[in-house]
């Protein structure tokens, strides 16, 4: 018997394999040690993520597993975001580790890492089934994480809600994928791009089946992305789940949904973006959902009293903005999408880290808790204010550059293609809702800074959480003032999807 090593290009998968083994190691460490340290497992997880990042840096580009696994710029860019958001989520979780999660520290970190591995597989998959498996590997650990406070009614509710919605959306997605397979005879995305176009040309009009496929896939991934009308789970799950998990859900899981969406639509259904293809076009459908997301997210967020719910609605709105980049379908749009989620990672993970720090101290996530916090905890208030301002899109923070690129992509698409003139409206609505957004972000700043009485609480920082705050702060300023390197990297996303600038 001879050891024949097939052309799998396993080296491309090195980061995923390493991170997976590392997650096993953390769980094993946790079950093996008798006298448990509060922080070791956490630091191990952080170290693992950093090493994975290093390995990712040395991993080349190419295809493996018979074109099912691909390592290109888009995959790498999103992998950095997954690793970064996992890093910041774990960094902000040391507070709850001390008191609330005593017996399952290893599992907590292991599950976050497993979910990260799933996202990384997803962003590298070049084919519908491995993409689906990646998506499942991403969400299943998150179901458990959402319900991690077993004794807390809200947390369990969050877990069950997320589980039911997640399972349902997976089924929808699979159904949609089966239609796409039926139309194209392949699950390979690049091949599908060609095959569906040929089917369309042969039969003149594929008719209702493609529409059904598009609607089902949009709905399936729409649940993960929390695009209205598939968003109802978001506020409850964010409110109930542990704050670091909510943070990871809002950035990591969302970025995963985004890359899955981009892979299927920008790559697989490339030809069916434009209204010329009516009624089989998906561009206007997604634009409509983006409008709904921006309006609903930004208006409902105004009335929230719980900060995690507010951030949940704000994240719904942010996805709406990102979708403009995808609907624009030009090189700038793809780069803008990447840059947006990159900037969003720093701002949102930072904001959730601040929420976690306050929650550790006060045990409350009500916005009224933040009243007068600036006088007792100036560092936390200042950084939190910066995160919120970045989410609102105030220069010179990275959030502004991100919105700027998104709008630029939208306007470029509208200007270069008369069929996409409605993109002006899309951008216009985005602008209008940005003004709403400023109102509720400013409201938190108002609570922190303009209150008459100083807050009775004075927060304490643990080292990792403080690091997360500072990373967020530095990221927003550095990439807001000099975004060129990231943009240059992000512009590679477009060529990964075969869009020529």
């Amino acid at each position: 018997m001879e050891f024949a090593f097939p052309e799998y290009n396993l080296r491309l998968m090195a980061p995923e394999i390493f991170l997976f083994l590392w997650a096993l190691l953390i769980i094993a460490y946790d079950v093996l040690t008798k006298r448990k340290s509060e922080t070791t497992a956490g630091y191990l997880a952080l170290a693992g993520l950093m090493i994975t990042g290093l390995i990712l840096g040395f991993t080349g580009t190419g295809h493996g597993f018979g074109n099912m696994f691909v390592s290109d710029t888009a995959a790498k860019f999103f992998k950095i975001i997954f690793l970064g958001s996992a890093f910041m989520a774990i960094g902000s979780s040391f507070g709850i580790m001390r008191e609330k999660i005593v017996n399952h520290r290893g599992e907590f970190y292991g599950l976050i890492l497993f979910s990260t591995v799933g996202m990384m597989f997803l962003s590298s998959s070049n084919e519908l089934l491995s993409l689906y498996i990646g998506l499942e590997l991403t969400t299943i650990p998150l179901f458990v994480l959402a319900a991690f406070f077993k004794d807390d009614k809200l947390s369990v509710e969050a877990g069950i809600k997320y589980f039911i919605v997640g399972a349902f959306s997976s089924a929808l997605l699979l159904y949609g994928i089966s239609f796409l397979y039926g139309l194209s005879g392949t699950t390979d995305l690049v091949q599908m791009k060609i095959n569906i176009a040929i089917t369309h040309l042969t039969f003149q009009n594929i008719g209702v089946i493609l529409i059904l496929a598009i609607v089902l896939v949009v709905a399936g991934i729409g649940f993960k992305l929390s695009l209205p009308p598939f968003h109802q789970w978001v506020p409850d799950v964010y409110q109930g789940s542990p704050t670091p998990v909510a943070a990871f859900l809002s950035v990591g899981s969302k970025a995963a949904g985004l890359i899955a969406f981009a892979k299927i639509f920008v790559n697989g259904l490339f030809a069916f973006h434009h209204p010329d293809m009516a009624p089989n076009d998906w561009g206007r459908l997604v634009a409509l959902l983006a409008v709904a997301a921006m309006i609903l997210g930004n208006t409902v967020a105004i009335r929230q009293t719980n900060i995690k719910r507010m951030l949940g609605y704000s994240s719904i709105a942010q996805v709406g903005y990102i979708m403009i980049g995808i609907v624009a379908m030009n090189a700038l749009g793809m780069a803008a999408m990447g840059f947006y989620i990159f900037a969003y990672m720093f701002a949102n993970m930072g904001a959730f880290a601040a929420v976690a720090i306050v929650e550790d101290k006060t045990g409350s996530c009500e916005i009224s808790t933040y009243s007068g916090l600036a006088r007792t905890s100036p560092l936390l208030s200042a950084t939190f204010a910066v995160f919120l301002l970045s989410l609102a899109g105030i220069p010179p923070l990275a959030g502004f550059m991100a919105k700027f690129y998104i709008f630029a992509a939208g306007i470029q698409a509208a200007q270069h293609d008369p069929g996409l003139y409605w993109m002006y409206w899309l951008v216009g609505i985005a602008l209008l809702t940005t003004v709403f957004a400023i109102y509720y972000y400013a409201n938190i700043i108002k609570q922190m800074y303009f209150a008459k009485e100083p807050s009775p609480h004075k927060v304490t920082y643990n080292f990792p959480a403080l690091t997360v705050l500072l990373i967020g702060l530095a990221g927003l300023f550095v990439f807001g003032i000099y975004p060129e390197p990231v943009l240059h990297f992000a512009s590679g996303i477009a060529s990964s999807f075969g869009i020529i600038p």
Partner: protein
Amino acid sequence: MEGTANSMSEYLSVLIFIFVGIGSVLFTFFLSRLIRPHNPYKEKSIPYECAELPIGDSWFKFNNRFYIFALMFVIFDVEVVFLFPWAVAFGELGLFALVEMIIFILILFFGLFYAWRKGALKWV
């Protein structure tokens, strides 16, 4: 549109197959109803060779442990499902397949090990 019609007509046979399938089942039921003798009595409606007669309410709480054991069982059940085809094709696959399967089993063993350490195999 013509093409669509053609491709749909290929499914016609499937449709006919479904109707015939349902129809034949219904037909045999109907036939047996015509032929069989009709003599109902009480013993006929109790479970026969399936289980004990239920005593009391059937809606009672099972011990949680049953579920954990069932879960453990399912994992290894699935493992066997994968092992069978692997064993059949083993001759052509070579050493690499062996290594792959060992990794697969090791990961499952890790799960078993974890469950063991967490006390899932203990009946308290």
